[in-house]
């Protein structure tokens, strides 16, 4: 993958991990593996279980390099 793709597995990991919280990393990763019909379906699911808009995809507050 030569660029970050909206709706990709890693985009889903980003959205689930940041929406469900790092303390739920295991379930976040497993939910990211679900073959979602579309990123919108995935985001609607996140909203339905968290009651909030999906988090993640942000490019601010980055503290350290990897």
């Amino acid at each position: 993958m030569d660029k970050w793709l909206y709706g990709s597995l890693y985009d889903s990991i980003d959205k689930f991990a940041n929406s469900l919280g790092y303390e739920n990393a295991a379930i976040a990763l497993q939910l990211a593996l679900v073959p979602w019909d579309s990123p919108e379906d995935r985001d609607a699911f996140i909203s339905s279980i968290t009651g909030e808009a999906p988090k993640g995809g942000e490019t601010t507050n980055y503290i350290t390099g990897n």
Partner: protein
Amino acid sequence: MTTAPENRGGDRPNASQNNPASINPLGGNGQSGDNKQATRYIPDMKSLGSTGVETMAQQGGASLAGNPTPTEPAPKLSIAEMLASTGMNTLMSDTDNPSEPINAGLDSQLPANVTADTRDLENLEVIQKYLPAMINASRIPGAPDSFKQFVNYAIGRING
């Protein structure tokens, strides 16, 4: 001998009904602008229990259905906002039944020593499995910082 064409009767192109300026954009009774339909005698209303006078008076008060007052469209809510407005519980909501034991609903009893939150162990197991791929993904151009932060967190967990 020639006669001038008559300027009356029929659907002439220059007749008033064909002049757009004569049409009231607000609807209603032509150019009057009062947005009311013209009152007219309606036969046989008596058989329906209404006198002619009543029928005329009724028509005088009735506006045409056209040109409704625009109403503010209902705001579009996101799913999250809709859920919040219904007061429905979500995964992140506090439990409604805090006294319910963790193993409620299981067919068999959990071992006595399994009472704590086991998410940490599960997290480590899954993070270990996917961390190498996630580290590679965090180097993809355009990877959001929120993802890199999560990868940093995962690295921190593995390193202890």
